[in-house]
């Protein structure tokens, strides 16, 4: 029983680590996901092809494999000397961006095509139409799948623990390696994950209620 109290600082660090990696990756995933979704519906063929390739590649690759690439290949080519946190953030963010992109794209297709036609007929460019007319109206529909995606991201962040990032799952592994009963350790770990995931669902439920578009 003592393990839970004796290692409280480690658990706290793990909790904050999970929170940090999840938050940072979520921001990357959201920004990239929306941009790539814009690419996928763009009138410019090379952008569409890039978007399609991005989603096909990242969505269909096992996350652990992406972590291996991010940890061992990426530093050789691009970010020499990047910290494990940054690399993990890249892997998780890019991976999740492919799911965000598809959720956003599904939202875009729920906006009646006449909305975009009206915007274009006013002389708005594709970018303006997407930004000011289509995406704001797609947001409401996108919120529901987005909350699931971010909850999955929270749990996926556990893989970062195996790649030298301090986070909950890594702490659990450390303590179980020291010989403590694993069931007990997982009590704190599970609780910490629940705090994060419930917070995500709560925030999204709030957003959904506030962003209704009357039609």
């Amino acid at each position: 029983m003592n393990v839970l109290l004796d290692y409280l600082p480690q658990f706290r660090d793990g909790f904050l680590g999970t929170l940090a990696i999840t938050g940072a990756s979520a921001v990357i995933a959201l920004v990239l996901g929306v941009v790539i979704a814009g690419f996928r519906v763009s009138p410019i063929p090379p952008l569409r092809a890039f978007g399609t390739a991005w989603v096909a590649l990242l969505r269909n690759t096992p996350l652990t494999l992406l972590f291996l690439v991010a940890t061992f290949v990426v530093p050789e080519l691009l970010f020499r000397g990047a910290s494990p946190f940054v690399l993990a953030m890249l892997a998780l963010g890019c991976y999740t961006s492919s799911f965000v992109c598809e959720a956003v794209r599904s939202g875009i297709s729920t906006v009646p095509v006449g909305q975009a036609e009206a915007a274009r007929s006013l002389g708005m460019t594709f970018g303006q139409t997407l930004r000011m007319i289509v995406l704001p109206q797609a947001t409401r529909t996108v919120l529901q799948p987005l909350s699931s995606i971010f909850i999955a991201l929270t749990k996926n962040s556990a893989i970062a623990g195996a790649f030298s990032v301090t986070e909950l799952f890594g702490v659990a592994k450390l303590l179980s390696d020291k010989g403590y009963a694993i069931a007990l350790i997982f009590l704190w770990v599970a609780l910490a994950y629940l705090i994060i995931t419930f917070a995500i669902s709560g925030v999204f439920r709030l957003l959904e209620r506030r962003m209704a578009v009357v039609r």
Partner: protein
Amino acid sequence: MSEVSVTKNDEGPAPTGDPLVVLDNVNKHFGALHVLQDIDLTIHRGEVVVVIGPSGSGKSTLCRTINRLETVDSGGITIDGKPLPQEGRELARLRADVGMVFQSFNLFAHKTVLENVMLGQLKVRRKDRASAAKRARELLDRVGVGTQADKYPAQLSGGQQQRVAIARALAMDPKVMLFDEPTSALDPEMINEVLDVMQQLARDGMTMVVVTHEMGFARSAANRVVFMADGRIVEEAEPNQFFTNPRSDRAKDFLSKILHH
């Protein structure tokens, strides 16, 4: 002078302006369907052209090709001497000069009525907020929905929404206005309030292309009626002549179906 020439249309503003919209041998297919066949049509500045015809005759498609919401397979379209460019900034600039009113209104659902009429002025014409708002309120008053400015489109009746849509298009100070069946989605009692606004526009000298089933409007407001069937322009005439003495059998048949029941 021929003896039949004394009609109201001869007294009205004759289409004497220079060519504003020119369609030259335009063809378009939807798959195997040849929706526009060798369309030649010139709309002069200040002219009101009403396009009528049975459903599926291609009249809506014709209207939508003019601001390139539909692309064409062959043939040329010019607006004020400029050929329609490919999708991009230049096309966007050209579209800003071509107002469009849709059958289903297509007001921006997440913006208020006032914002709907301001948006194009702000983001396309780059006007400042104050003058855009002033112009928007002016236009909303002109189409009779000034008191609804702060409501959302869904809170308005169909007739009010369509009048807002007209105001939104007018806010861009367009050279020509396209109306794609503007009253077809309206309840009967709301059709006239929209037609009245369009009549006023026509009297003010706006160049208009109107696809409609409202024969009364065609008779009273049009300088010219274009009758389409099966993707072709079958007949063009001034309204009085078209409605009293159509030349083609196709037009006679169409008019007999819609005028006698």
